[in-house]
């Protein structure tokens, strides 16, 4: 069923009885041309683009829980293309362009809102760094505007500009940045893949990867063995466990990242804002809740929940930046399991096992990458070659020294 305004009116007139499930619930077949392990944002977009761009429709997505049950439904929904380094810059630029056409392409409302992103700076040195970053963004073909203090004040009058500890010097404004409705992104890709014939198989946990003579031949699952000559691992925080099934030890450490949402408020924050002197970022959802987050808890964890010290730190950073939010009540907080890489950049590459591919290492920033990650992973799985905008996301770049360390913090996994 194609969704449209007319369809909504028609269904409204007849009691909304005509809506069909957005995707099938098929049983796994004995063999597919390709299998994607992981039914999150990246896995579903990989399946969608394999079908759409490469005509591979005899494929399956295997998800151990329900579709979109991982980080795609647990993030702070920010979409941006403000990267600096070659490798990241062209990739996220490509992703943002895909976002801009996503709703028409998927025939699905992902509530993509280009409300603008403002990264604040608080010193002369930071201003120089942001000016340079802004120039890189413009050179890449994206947009960036360097705002002085008065420029920021005009847009965000509620910030605490006069404080002595972290005075606000200005901000780098990225008008095409924004947010999207995270679950809808997973659902939109799932529906799009399903409509092209992809089998989305839920409650199907992969328990083993079959390798014969250095080639992948299929997977073992809780719903039986499934053969495939191509298998993609797209499982974010669980990458180390799944890769270990094929004898691999990854450059990944899984960490906890907390996020928070307040009670619904009237519109008060129109943009996405990040604080330059502490890891704090905030936006307001269309439902009215303030959605914000900060740093990792810093210790390796799979708990999907964090500890109080980081809660306290995030609240302090928020209050330092915009004291007006102090009366809002926090409704919920939660944690996502981040696949942290040693340089803070992702991996989309072949593995030492023929036919086995991996897409992981998304650190804090997997959500905005969902379209391009799927696009490039699909290209890799279909053609065997890296897509040009993801050509530097190699699995072995840490051994060869070709790291993409956007923050310049070295090889410690939790510092990115």
């Amino acid at each position, binding site marked *: 069923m194609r969704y449209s305004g007319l369809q909504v009116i028609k269904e409204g007139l007849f009691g909304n009885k005509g809506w069909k499930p957005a995707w099938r619930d098929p049983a796994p077949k004995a063999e597919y041309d390709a299998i994607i392990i992981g039914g999150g944002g990246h896995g579903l977009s990989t399946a969608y683009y394999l079908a759409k761009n490469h005509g591979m429709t005899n494929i399956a997505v295997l998800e151990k829980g329900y579709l979109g049950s991982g980080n795609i439904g647990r993030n702070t929904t920010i979409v941006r293309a403000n990267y600096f380094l070659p490798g990241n810059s062209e990739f996220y630029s490509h992703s943002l362009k895909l976002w801009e056409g996503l709703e028409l392409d998927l025939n699905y409302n992902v509530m993509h809102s280009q409300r603008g992103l403002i990264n604040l700076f608080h010193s002369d040195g930071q201003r120089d760094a942001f000016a340079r970053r802004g120039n890189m963004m413009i050179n890449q073909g994206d947009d960036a505007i360097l705002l002085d203090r008065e420029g920021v004040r005009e847009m965000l009058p509620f910030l605490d500009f006069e404080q002595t500890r972290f005075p606000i010097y200005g901000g780098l404004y990225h008008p095409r940045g924004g947010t999207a409705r995270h679950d809808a992104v997973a659902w939109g890709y799932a529906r799009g893949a399903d409509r092209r014939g992809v089998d989305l198989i839920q409650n199907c946990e992969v328990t083993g990867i079959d390798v014969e003579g250095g080639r992948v031949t299929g997977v073992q699952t809780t719903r039986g063995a499934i053969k495939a000559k191509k298998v993609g691992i797209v499982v974010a925080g669980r990458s*180390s466990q799944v890769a270990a099934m094929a004898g691999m030890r990854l*450059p990944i450490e899984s960490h906890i990242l907390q996020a928070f949402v307040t009670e619904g408020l009237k519109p008060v924050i129109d943009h996405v804002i990040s604080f330059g002197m502490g890891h704090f970022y905030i936006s307001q959802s269309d439902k009215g809740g303030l959605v914000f987050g900060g740093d990792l808890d810093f210790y*390796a*964890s*799979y708990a999907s929940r964090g500890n109080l*010290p980081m809660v306290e730190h995030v609240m302090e950073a928020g209050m330092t930046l915009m004291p007006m939010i102090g009366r809002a009540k926090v409704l919920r907080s939660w944690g996502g399991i981040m696949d942290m890489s040693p340089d803070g950049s992702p991996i989309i590459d072949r593995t030492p096992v023929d036919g086995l591919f991996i897409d992981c290492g998304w650190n804090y920033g997997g959500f905005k990458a969902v379209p391009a990650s799927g696009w490039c992973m699909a290209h890799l799985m279909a053609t065997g070659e890296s897509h040009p905008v993801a050509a530097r996301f190699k699995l072995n770049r840490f051994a060869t020294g070709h790291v993409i360390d956007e923050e310049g913090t070295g090889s410690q996994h939790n510092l990115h």
Partner: protein
Amino acid sequence: MRINCPLCGTRDRREFYYYGAEDYLDRPAPEAPAQAWDDYLHNRDNPAGVTRDLWYHDLGCSSWLVVTRNTVTHEILAVEAVADRKGGAA
């Protein structure tokens, strides 16, 4: 989360700095092959369950500690000072 420092007793997590997996204690020789350095710096078992990692008691006794803990439950199972390990100080 509270960590039982062998010298200071049970202290709040805020006093400690997390460095990374225990792998950091096995520093390769300078002339070791590149693969050994790659494993030491980057590659990790990253278990969902019991792990052993290095913490520094930053706001306490300045000891480096090996903490055995569960990454799924955040339970701390054992803490020992690196200096007390067989083979001496790191």
